[in-house]
């Protein structure tokens, strides 16, 4: 697998790990206010970024050791850009649906905290769809 494919795998793992943490915290230690929920979700987004950075460093080191040569990213070419755009297009669709779903959640009188969770979950799913799409397009062309 290329560096960019590994990057997509790491993106998916990060979204799953942090998403699972958010769900676990929501079930076992639910925040009292909407502001607290939003704050926790913002922290989760920061954790996703940090997890991605740390995991990419670890992955690069491990693959470099396994291959016995430096494993580093290459400058994106036209194929990388085309794959990236297709992934973003799919992710945009999911993020748009998540936005509408969160509005529907509010429209039906649900707790705003639930709408925040719906929006967050949709955005995490969009990230997974983006990374998953990139993996598929790199494989099938």
């Amino acid at each position, binding site marked *: 697998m*290329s560096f*960019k494919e590994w990057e997509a795998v790491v993106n998916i793992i990060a979204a799953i790990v942090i998403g699972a943490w958010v769900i676990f915290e929501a079930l076992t230690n639910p925040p009292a206010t909407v502001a607290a929920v939003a704050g926790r979700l913002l922290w989760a987004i920061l954790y996703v970024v940090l997890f991605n950075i740390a995991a990419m460093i670890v992955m690069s080191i491990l693959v470099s050791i396994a291959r016995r040569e430096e494993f580093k990213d*290459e*400058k994106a*070419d*036209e*194929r*990388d850009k*085309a*794959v990236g755009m297709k992934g973003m297009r799919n992710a945009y669709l999911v993020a748009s649906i998540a936005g509408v779903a969160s509005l529907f959640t509010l429209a039906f009188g649900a707790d705003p905290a639930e709408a925040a969770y719906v929006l967050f979950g949709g955005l995490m799913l969009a990230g997974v769809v983006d990374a998953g799409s990139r993996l598929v*397009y*790199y494989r*099938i*062309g």
Partner: protein
Amino acid sequence: MGKGQARIDNTIRTLRFNAGEMTQAALAEKVGVTRQTIVAMEQGRYSPSLEVAFRVARAFGVPLEQVFQYRGEGE
């Protein structure tokens, strides 16, 4: 990159062989794309832009149609 089977064939593998078994990495360097893109092109999983196609042909010093051949609908 498109839906279904690629309708553009190429002879990059043969041309690399004829060029003294030029490596994919060396060709990628000459063309200005990643090695993965050369691999995808050889396997027919990616049809490059016209500009990259010309650069591939120039890397081998042959006309474009010697590198890429278009298969029409249903061929």
